[in-house]
Each structure stands twice: as structure tokens, then as C-alpha cells.
């Protein structure tokens, strides 16, 4: 007993007072569209299809009709494998410094730009495109109205693994360790959905977990919030969507209020996402570009 006390005294307080401070080395990739030529090398290097080269968009024709191209990066699908960075011949893709992206819709996690395509084959940046659907501020207002300020000081969370590889579970469990200690923020993991305010769901939702996930949601009292965690929970990730075994993102099965991308998102990002769901933090759905002079490695 004395040894246990002595050990605790020797260890002291290890809890990080500011767990959200962005201290990680490498975050999500960022495309500098002004240097991009829409060649598509990054899209071919991307294992999950997070980077897409879009066809002509009839609504906004280029120099001659039907000669517009779009480039989009969907952070919901990004597994931070960094394959796109060396693939880019222009050096337009760099490692961003942010890892803690949070959004309310899948579309908010998409970064898209349009390019004018010339007959010579050259493509030049035209503009960044807005994504359809509500903005982050509109979504925040809608979510706040639905939960009517009931969460904020205390939140009971039921975690549901609907198909994950267990990487997200490791990082969710890490939020309870002495360094992150999420209980100090009034967040508790509970053993039953009947005790829960929020379902923290990882994916991809499998065919064999679809029914269990629906029933878990039904067992959760209103008002309830569903948070999708990880690239697979947000979009199906590397396992894809609509295969015989994996249905895809959590929103293919139950409505999702908050998305936390990453493969897996680190504990800091999961905490940030829970704070957004509680309405005590603003969501940020775009990574910051690397600081000037930062290397692209």
C-alpha cells in the first residue's frame, strides 16, 4: 500500500493542461490550388479516392464550353498516408500542421477548386468552389437548437464499434488515460446506450453490424447526438462503400451530427470533436496550410 502511495507521489500530475494544443508533427495534407495543374497524379496515388479529378461542370463552363476540370480533396476519406505529397510534380501538396478537423456534414470536409482547361491540355486555377449544404456556423446553430443546451457541462458517451479495425478504439480509449483524462471535462463513457447522450461510432458499418447499430441508436434517449469517428466512420475509408460486406460511412445507416476524420484520429482530435458536439468549441473543417518555409517532407 505504501509502495502504491509512494509511486503515485513520485509520478505527480501528468495530465496535460491543454490537450488540444496542436503539437503533432504531421497533419492532413493541403493542396495549394494556385500551384496545381489538375494533372491527376495525386488522385492516382491516393488509395482511398479522397482526391478526385472531376469532369466538366456544365453550370460553369470554361474558356470554351465543357472544358472545366475540378480537383477535390475529401478529408473524410483521407488516411494521412502522405502518398499524394511526393506524387505531385509541382510540389503543390504539402503536409499541413492540423490534425483536429471536425465538421457537421461530409461536404464540409471537401476542399474543391475548379480549373480552366485549354485545348493545349494545360489547366489553370480558376477559383475555389464552395461546397453544397449548410456552412459550419449554420450547422452549429442547428445542432445547438436540437440539443437545446442540454449538453455542455456533462456528456455521457456510448462507444459503438460498427466495423472498425480497432485503431480508432485504441485512440478513443487513449482519451481516458492520465495524460488526456477526458473525465475532467465532464465526459464519461457509459456501458449502455440507455444512459448515453451521444453515440461515438466507428466504421465502416458492416453488413453484420448494421442491425446492431440501428438498435443501439433506438435504445438511446432523445436528444441524442451521433458522432462518426475515423476515415472509415466518415466515408468507408480504405474499405470503400457499398461492398458486399462494408456498407460504408456511419451516415449510410444512421444520421450523423458530427464527423471526426483521421486514420485514426489522435486523442486530441477526438476530444476536439466531442467538444464540438457539446457546443463548446467551434468546428474547423480545413487544415491550416503549412507555415512558409516548411518543408514538404
Amino acid at each position, binding site marked *: 500500500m505504501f*509502495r*502504491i502511495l509512494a*509511486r*503515485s507521489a513520485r*509520478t505527480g500530475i*501528468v495530465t496535460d493542461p491543454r490537450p488540444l494544443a496542436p503539437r*503533432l*508533427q*504531421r497533419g492532413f495534407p493541403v493542396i495549394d490550388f494556385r500551384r496545381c495543374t489538375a494533372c491527376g497524379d495525386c488522385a492516382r496515388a491516393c*488509395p*482511398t479516392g479522397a482526391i478526385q479529378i472531376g469532369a466538366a461542370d456544365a453550370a460553369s463552363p470554361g474558356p470554351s464550353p465543357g472544358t472545366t476540370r475540378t480537383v477535390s480533396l475529401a478529408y473524410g476519406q483521407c*488516411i*494521412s*498516408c*502522405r502518398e499524394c505529397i511526393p506524387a505531385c510534380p509541382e510540389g503543390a501538396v504539402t503536409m499541413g500542421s492540423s490534425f483536429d478537423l471536425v465538421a457537421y456534414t461530409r461536404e464540409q470536409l471537401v476542399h474543391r477548386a475548379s480549373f480552366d482547361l485549354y485545348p493545349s491540355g494545360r489547366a489553370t486555377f480558376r477559383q475555389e468552389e464552395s461546397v453544397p449544404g449548410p456552412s459550419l456556423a449554420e450547422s452549429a446553430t442547428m445542432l445547438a437548437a436540437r440539443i437545446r443546451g442540454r449538453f455542455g457541462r456533462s456528456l455521457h458517451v456510448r*462507444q*459503438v*464499434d*460498427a*466495423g*472498425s*479495425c*480497432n*485503431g*480508432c*478504439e*485504441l*485512440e*478513443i*480509449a*487513449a482519451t*481516458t*488515460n*492520465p*495524460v*488526456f483524462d477526458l473525465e475532467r471535462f465532464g465526459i464519461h*463513457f457509459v*456501458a*449502455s*446506450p440507455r444512459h448515453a447522450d451521444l453515440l461515438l461510432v466507428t466504421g*465502416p458499418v*458492416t*453488413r*453484420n*453490424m448494421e442491425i*446492431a447499430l440501428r438498435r*443501439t441508436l433506438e435504445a438511446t434517449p432523445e436528444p441524442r447526438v451521433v458522432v462518426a469517428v475515423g476515415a*472509415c466512420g466518415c466515408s468507408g*475509408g*480504405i*474499405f*470503400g462503400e*457499398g*461492398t*458486399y*460486406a*462494408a456498407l460504408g460511412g456511419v451516415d449510410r445507416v444512421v444520421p450523423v451530427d458530427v464527423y471526426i476524420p483521421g*486514420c*485514426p484520429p*489522435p486523442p486530441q482530435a477526438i476530444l476536439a470533436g466531442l467538444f464540438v458536439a457539446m457546443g463548446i468549441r467551434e468546428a474547423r473543417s480545413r487544415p491550416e496550410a503549412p507555415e512558409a518555409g516548411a518543408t514538404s517532407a
Partner: protein
Amino acid sequence: MNATIEAVRETLGLPASAISAPRPGELRAHVEPGALPDVADRLVAGLGARLASLFATDERVWNAVYALHQIWLLPRQRTFLRVTSRVDPAHPRFMSIAAKHPSANWFEREVVDTFGLVPVGHPNPTPVSLHDDWPAGEWTLRKDFPDDRQVTRVPGSFHPFRPVTGEGVFHVPVGPVHAGIIEPGHFRFGVAGEPVLYLQLRLFYVHKGTEKRFERLPWRHGIFLAESISGDTAVGHALAFAHAIERLIGCEPPPRARYLRVVLLELERIYNHVSDIGAIATDVAFSVPAAHAQLLRERLVSLQERLFGSRLLRGTVAIGGVKADLEAAGRDELLAHLGRLKADFESLVTLLIDSGSFTDRIDGTGVLSTEAARDLGVTGLAARASGLDEDLRRDHPHDAYDAFGFVVPVEEGGDVRARLMVRAREVEQSIGILRQALGALPDSPLLTPPPAELPAFSAALGWAEAWRGPCLHWVETDAYGALTRVKVTDPSFRNWPGLARAVPGNIIPDFPVINKSFNLSYSGNDR
């Protein structure tokens, strides 16, 4: 190699032409379909062989047959042997070996589930991987089954669990959604009050079609799928896949990459073992050491993030080498950290095993006997805790393991304590391996770039002894050099039957700590 072929040929009584050695450490034997049981008996009795994997392939397009493959580990010959037999599509069945060799039980049932090839003579040929709402006649790994087919659910039919009768005897259902932050699976306990009479497992809730997915993705992207087979074994599975592809194309990673791969795999072993020992303490409500263990783990994974750019070491292994280098400063920092970790970890283990209330819960709990472990094909750390002395790092060295001195800890008890002690002693050995590797990091490039295309019609086996046990990847290409079959064998698939065997006779409150002492992956099992 010739002596090995001769020994195998003699044991099996086959003509010399039936056995070939496509590459070091890997033998191939073609046998007649009817000879499979006899070959298995001879291999086990004559050479002490252990079944490492069993699967089928659909070769109807090229060869007009299915094929059944058994991968055996020959410990004395230090080689793997793949025994292949054709299966006639007009008579889709093969000779089962499961009645005599229970290690083949789940493997053969999975072949029925995914290929529709029936094991003749299997004592219990019921589905193991298919759920009750899966219709008959849909074989997912056959080539004519598209990976995006939407299969309608069959209504009704609740799973027929084994009934229990008697006064005070009843079922306790648990899952698939569990009370903690863990993966989904259904456990059905038949209990008489507190003591468990038997445990039935219902897994494959997180089946993601991973093996089919490998056939769809470009082979270079397969390494990212391999990292997601079981998130806690990202390095182990990435290495097994990379080894398979490298052996297929004859690509040798540079020396520095081979050393760094050892560093990555041992770091993965340490963070998982430390975390599991803490989780065993959690499950007996001994919270101070549990919190200390999670602190040690967190400090290590955050250092991994700084040194390698990923907390769980994802994206560090590449086909042909590694992507993450370690500078001199990082190497010194890691060595210093390991020194502190070793001291902290040793005092943590001492604290645990000196506590009578803790050892009271782990001594004699969840015993898996040596015989049961051997017969069921249990592997990895669970096997070593049940007295089976096997470790691929020593017996079939991959990467740079043949350059280091280490011992393989083996415990005889087969209980929770034995599995805890194997972990504790392996952490000590891993730190020793890391010190040797970091002290002698060769200077070389990090990558031998692989060719743009894989050779056509070839197959290779890759393996890695990850923290839980051996990860095996067998890959095969078609006429265009695309991956046409990837068989993934996670140690969990071989160890779940061992867990089901270790639980009966214990009381239900001891189930969590027994389960945690194995800490099997649901995702790795279900794929």
C-alpha cells in the same frame, strides 16, 4: 535445401517431382485430392508440423479447377510447406482433416462459407464466418462474385445456440455491442450459477471483405489495407504483406530498412504489451498500476508520433523498405526513453505480482493446457504461455532478426499469469533487441524501389511475428500481374478457439480478465 526436400519427400512418400522449393523458406507439394488426410497425418507425426493456414483459390478461369492449400510450418526443417490439391468444380468437395487435426476446424469451415467447397468428413461443418441472414449459394471469394453485390438478408432464423437444460442452468448472452470501448462479438455463456459450463463464440460482426478488397485495389495500395486489418498490429500486417510482395518480385530491402523494420515491430510489441498488462489490472479493479501502464503506453506512442509521424506507426513500412527514417538525435532520444521505460515497467510488474489480491485473481485462472493449445493450433504469445516454444523471429527470421541475440520467453502455466509473464518478459527482450538494432543501424538507402508490375501467375508467402503472434499473407497474381487472391491469417483466428476452451470451469466475473489476457483482435479474425 535439398536435404529438406528429401526429408519431406521421404515422410510423405511422394515422387521427387511433386515437391519444389520456389524460394528460400518455402516448399510446395502437389498431392492428389484423396491424399490430403494421409499427408496431414504424416506431416504431423513424422515432422511435428503445425498448420499455419488453410484456404482455397478459384482457378476456374485459368485451370478449370478450384485449389485447396494447406500451409504447414515445419519447425525442424525451418521452412513453410504449402500442400496444394485440386478441387473439381463438378464435385466441389475436399477431404477434411479437422477430425484428427482440430487446428483445421475453423479454416475448413471458412472455405465452405466463402467458396462453397465442402470438407468431407468434417465433424461440424456449420458456418463459422457467415451470419444467419446470409443466403445459401452466395460464395464471396469465388471469382464470379462481384465485390459490390448487394446480397439480400434472409428473414428469421435466430442462431441455434447449443441448448442447456437442468435446474439453475441458463444462458447469459453478451454482445455484440459490449460495455467497454472494445470491438463487437457475441458471447453465449452456458452457466450453472456463477461457473461457466461452456462458451460459444459468435464472431464476424466486423467482417469487411478485406481479402476481396485486396483483389480490387492496386497492389501498391494493398499495404494501407494491410495496416487496417487489425489497427493494433499495423506494422505486423504491413510487414507480412510487404514480405509477400518482396518475395514475389525478388526484391531485397536495404540493410537500414531491415533494421528499422525490427525497430518498428518491437515498438509495436512494447506498446501493446504494456497496455495489455495495464488492462489486466483494470479488469481486476487494481486501478493505480492500470493508470501507470496507460501512462507508459501514452508516452511511448506520443514519442512514436514525433519520431515516425504516426502514433500507431502507420505509413512507416513500404514495399521494398521503410518510409520513415530515424536521425541520430531521434535514435538517442529513443534509447534514453527506453531506459526510463524499462525501469518504470519493471517496478510496475513487481508491484503487480507482489500484490496478493492481484495474483489471487490471475493464478490458475483461464488455464489452456499445452495439449489443447497444440491441438487447437493456438499460436503466438498465447501458445508460448501454454508451454509451446515457437517464435518466427527465431525459427524463421525475417528482416534483420538473425542479426540479434534474444531469448523466446516460454511459460508453462497456461493461465492469465503465464500470459502476463510472457508479455512482461517479452518487453524486456524487445528492449534488448531495440538496443542492439539502434546501436548498429547500418547506413544505406531506405528503399529498394519495386518494379512497376508484378510477375504473372506467381505466388508467395510473407510472414512476420507480430506482438500477438504470426501474421501470414499469401499472395497470388493472375495473367496480368494483378493480385487475384490474398489470404490473410491473423493469429486471432487461430487463438479464438483456445479462448473458448480456457473459459469453462471459471466463473463469469473472471471472463473479462481471461479475455484480456489473450486480447484477441475481432477485426483481424473477421477481416
